[in-house]
């Protein structure tokens, strides 16, 4: 049976039901696959940020990212960021599939990568590196 408890919150009585995995017919899976997806998406985001800032800083690099003329350097940035996401996931998923990892380091690393991605794609940041 689910655990049913009563607690008082500011004078209000609140019913709380706590389910266990068995009661919901859940076979608990390790968190490795979630960590792999999280880190891969975060890595793809960071790559997008790095490519965006790199292209702003070096015209020659931006030219190399011009994979499709109509779209310009953005075509290379999105292609390589998307590839980074897929490849990172393909590499990490089999390695972490059956592993249970400590969440804190995974969350800190993923958070840092995602913040890097947001920062690198922000014009006020990447314009700092643009040639005079």
């Amino acid at each position, binding site marked *: 049976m689910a655990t049913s408890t009563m607690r008082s919150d500011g004078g209000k009585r609140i019913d709380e039901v706590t*389910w266990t995995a068995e009661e*919901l017919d*859940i076979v608990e*899976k390790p968190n490795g696959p979630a960590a792999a997806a*999280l880190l891969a998406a975060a890595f793809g985001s960071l790559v997008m940020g790095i490519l965006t800032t790199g292209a702003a800083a070096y015209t020659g690099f931006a030219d190399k990212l011009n994979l499709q003329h109509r779209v310009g350097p953005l075509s290379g940035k999105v292609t390589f960021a998307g590839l980074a*996401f897929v490849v990172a996931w393909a590499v990490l998923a089999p390695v972490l599939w059956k592993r249970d990892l400590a969440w804190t380091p995974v969350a800190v690393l993923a958070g840092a990568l995602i913040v890097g991605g*947001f920062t690198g794609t922000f*014009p*006020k940041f990447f314009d700092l590196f643009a040639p005079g």
Partner: protein
Amino acid sequence: MELTNREAWTAAHGMIFGALFLLAFAGGLAGLWSLRPEWVTRAGVSERMLRLKVGVTGMALVAWVTTITGTYIVYPWYRAKPPQGTTDLTHYPKSLLLATSGKAEWHKFGMEWKEHVAWLSPMLATAAAFIVLYYGNQLIVDRRLRWAAIVLFVAAFAAAGAAGLMGAFITKAAPLQ
């Protein structure tokens, strides 16, 4: 009442896919947030989980469709260079913004931010969708997994929201015609 091909694609990119994205986000977030042991019943779990899975998968798919159509269909029209000697820049929004006093920042900041940050959204939304699809009911009892999905989901929305907002302003300043 007619839309040109460009206007139709711009509307599909920004309004149809954008609205679907918002709808899927709102439903998905509410579903994830309320997926707490004290708020679910055994009978309600399967119905709620199905709705959540549809919502997050829909959001991830729509995020990919929106960014791909935006980048490869709409954006080339936006950035197209006018032929030498063109004085009417109506059909060249980027050039129009850069040439109009007080509007250049819509390109230099708005479009530059939009075109890049938008691409974080499908990757983050896909990871969130995977977590929901793969773990399902485990999210009810595993608070950390649920929070990982929520944070990814909100980050995906933040990226798409920034891009969408800039897109709306830019379309107002220099519509694609």
